[in-house]
């Protein structure tokens, strides 16, 4: 800690150089970003503790928030010796608080995570304030030469710190997405009908046997398959020609129709539930797969048409003209040239239709009230009635139902990405 020996008055001899004026150690800049973020996470944790009614946890977290904020405030502005001292005191207190906090309670994985949002920032602050260039800078001991060295060091260090912060953030995002899946998998392989409890503490396939062994599940699956595949087929048969026509032909009402398609997307499906029901009832399509196929195809159609139109727009007209000169008629042009080039878009549209139908709940619940006509989502819902909820079976069935979706996504991943970046595809 050579920096302490210098006197800050030594700098007053000349004006500070450009490097001196600009130099803030990368660690300090990082802390200035991370500390408020850590405080924010602690606020969320505080909310969690409040929901759990955990008074000790609340007061502990509240203390953590205050400490992190104090630390943040102390690190602002120019390097001053008292700031450094104050910061180090705050950081030490925070560290001790964080270390002691878990001692008087059972710690779960969650608690460990929560407390790490105090301990890690405080520990990093204390460490950085005490060592190396940043320590010297905080002590107000840096001169022009040190500032230049520091700037060069920042260039190397800053990207690493940024990457670290980014990865912490991304890991949390991933955990947020994966957690429910882990949870449902845990429920599905836990024996008995337990919700919650420790993760992966026991293993049993009884729920899977129960679900896959029952007749009802297979009946629902076949219903769902018929409806989803039917919707896909009907949807494509309607959306492909419609998208092509919107893309290539000028006709009366073209703009209006495109606009109405967009407009329909604005309304939540529940608005058309009652009219749909009346139509289905009149046509005698309640409790049939055809009824659902019609309803789903129509619901998914606007988006499919828009997606396909966008893709067809990207197929150069010159290609079609070349095919015309090569002796194709309009229909042949479409099948030999346009369609093969648009397969990624067709794949994404098919997948979209399939998933819409596979996952839809509300219409299926209202239209198909007979047990034989249930689709999977409705069937699954029927497993958790007001009494006698079969959580384990339900979880196992959910996983089985998700498998086709996951498989489809993996299979079509390439096409999906291509399809979504439709505009960038060159002819």
């Amino acid at each position: 800690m050579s920096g302490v020996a210098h006197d800050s008055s030594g700098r007053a001899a000349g004006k500070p150089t450009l490097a001196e004026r600009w130099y803030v150690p990368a660690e300090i800049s990082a802390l200035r970003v991370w500390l408020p973020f850590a405080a924010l996470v602690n606020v969320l944790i505080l909310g969690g503790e409040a929901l759990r009614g955990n008074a000790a946890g609340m007061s502990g977290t509240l203390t953590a928030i205050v400490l992190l904020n104090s630390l943040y405030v102390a690190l602002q502005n120019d390097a001053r010796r008292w700031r450094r001292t104050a910061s180090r005191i705050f950081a030490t207190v925070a560290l001790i608080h964080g270390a002691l906090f878990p001692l008087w309670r059972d710690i779960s994985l969650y608690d460990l995570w929560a407390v790490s949002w105090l301990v890690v920032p405080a520990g990093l602050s204390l460490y950085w304030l005490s060592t190396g260039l940043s320590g010297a800078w905080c002590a107000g001991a840096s001169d022009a030469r040190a500032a230049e060295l520091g700037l060069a060091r920042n260039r190397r260090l800053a990207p690493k710190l940024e990457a670290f912060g980014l990865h912490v953030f991304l890991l949390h995002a991933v955990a947020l997405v994966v957690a429910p899946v882990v949870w449902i998998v845990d429920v599905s392989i836990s024996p008995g009908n337990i919700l919650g409890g420790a993760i992966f503490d026991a293993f049993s396939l009884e729920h899977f046997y129960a679900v896959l062994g029952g007749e009802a599940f297979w009946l629902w699956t076949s219903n769902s398959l018929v409806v989803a595949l039917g919707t896909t087929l009907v949807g494509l048969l309607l959306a492909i020609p419609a998208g092509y026509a919107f893309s290539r032909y000028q006709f009366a009402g073209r703009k209006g129709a495109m606009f109405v398609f967009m407009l329909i997307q604005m309304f939540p499906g529940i608005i058309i539930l009652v009219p749909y029901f009346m139509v289905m009832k009149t046509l005698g399509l309640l409790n049939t797969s055809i009824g659902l196929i019609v309803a789903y195809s129509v619901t998914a159609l606007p988006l499919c048409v828009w997606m396909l139109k966008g893709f067809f727009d990207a197929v150069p007209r010159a290609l079609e003209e070349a095919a015309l000169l090569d002796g194709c008629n309009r229909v042949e042009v479409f099948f030999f040239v346009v369609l093969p080039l648009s397969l990624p878009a067709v794949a994404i549209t098919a997948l979209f239709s399939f998933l819409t139908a596979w996952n839809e709940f509300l219409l299926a619940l209202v239209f198909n009230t007979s047990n034989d006509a249930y689709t999977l989502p409705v069937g699954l819902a029927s497993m958790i009635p007001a009494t006698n909820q079969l959580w384990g079976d339900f979880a196992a069935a959910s996983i089985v139902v998700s498998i086709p979706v996951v498989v489809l996504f993996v299979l079509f991943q390439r096409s999906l990405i291509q399809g979504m970046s439709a505009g960038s595809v060159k002819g």
Partner: protein
Amino acid sequence: MSDVEFIGTTKIYDDGTVALDSLDLTVREGEFLVLLGPSGCGKSTALRLLAGLEDISRGEIRIGGSRVNDLPPGARGLGMVFQSYALYPHMTVRANLAFGLRRGRGDARVDAQEISVRVEEAAEMLDLHKWLDKKPRELSGGQQQRVAIGRALVRRPKVLLMDEPLSNLDAKLRNRMRFELRRLHEAHGTTTLYVTHDQVEAMTLADRVAILSEGKLQQSSKPLEAYHRPANSFVASFLGTPAMNLIEGAAKGGVFTAGELSFALPEHLAGRDGPGIFGVRPEDVQILDNGEGGGSPGDVHCRVGGVEHLGSDTVYHLEAGGNWIRALRRRSADRAQGTDGEPGEEIRVNLAVPAALIFED
């Protein structure tokens, strides 16, 4: 007989734009005709009407004497090379070449044996053997261009259409392909209609050039004839680099006057009277040495406004009585006369040369 006749062919778009205004033009059998003009002049429209990609508003088009207005594009016996090449990206080069042959029906049916023979022929002719099993995107621009030409020729079209086929190539490749196109034409003698805005392509490729402006045919003649005897001031200004000097004014009694500038007309124009546009090509402008001789009536005193050294030539921008005159001098002549013509220098030129012209419009 596979000559092409445009007879009063007119194209009016829905918004009222007249893209092509009653074009009368005949492309003779075996001829290489270039449609030349600035963008928006209707040259591409003429080609697309002939190809059947757009409907004819009025008039008709005949190929080999029979009206084709209402024939679908594929039935007109045409091959077309597109500016973007328009190769089918999902097919190999071989499949691209064979695609049109496979579509043949009725009389035009081609059996599989014949298809492969013709594809081989085309590959031979255009040196495409190495690429036959590649997809177009794996090929360079020049190679794609060859495939596009091959695809147009493999159907043995009565008429070959090309829409700015060289404009996507770099300058060096363009020069080579230009030469090859001419060579191909000489080998096959296919009637060819070629659209371009590039006068160099037009001059070098064409048996005959048809110059269009604003949907109207301005002149159709041999390229050199169009260069030396342009039908009007548009053709005069469009052909040639640097462009022809055009001075708007009036002729009277053997003297041409434009604002403050006035000079004697050459003998062959001395009889002209009334308003007109005096035209003389920069290379025809005679640059005279200062002080030498008493001067002839056609002399004009100018001030050098700028000089462009192009290596082989030097272009002088001269100001005379409010008019700008471009004069071009070969390098050898430059050296002989010793003067460089610095900007600001006074210089004398003679415009009354035998190649000078007067246009009425």
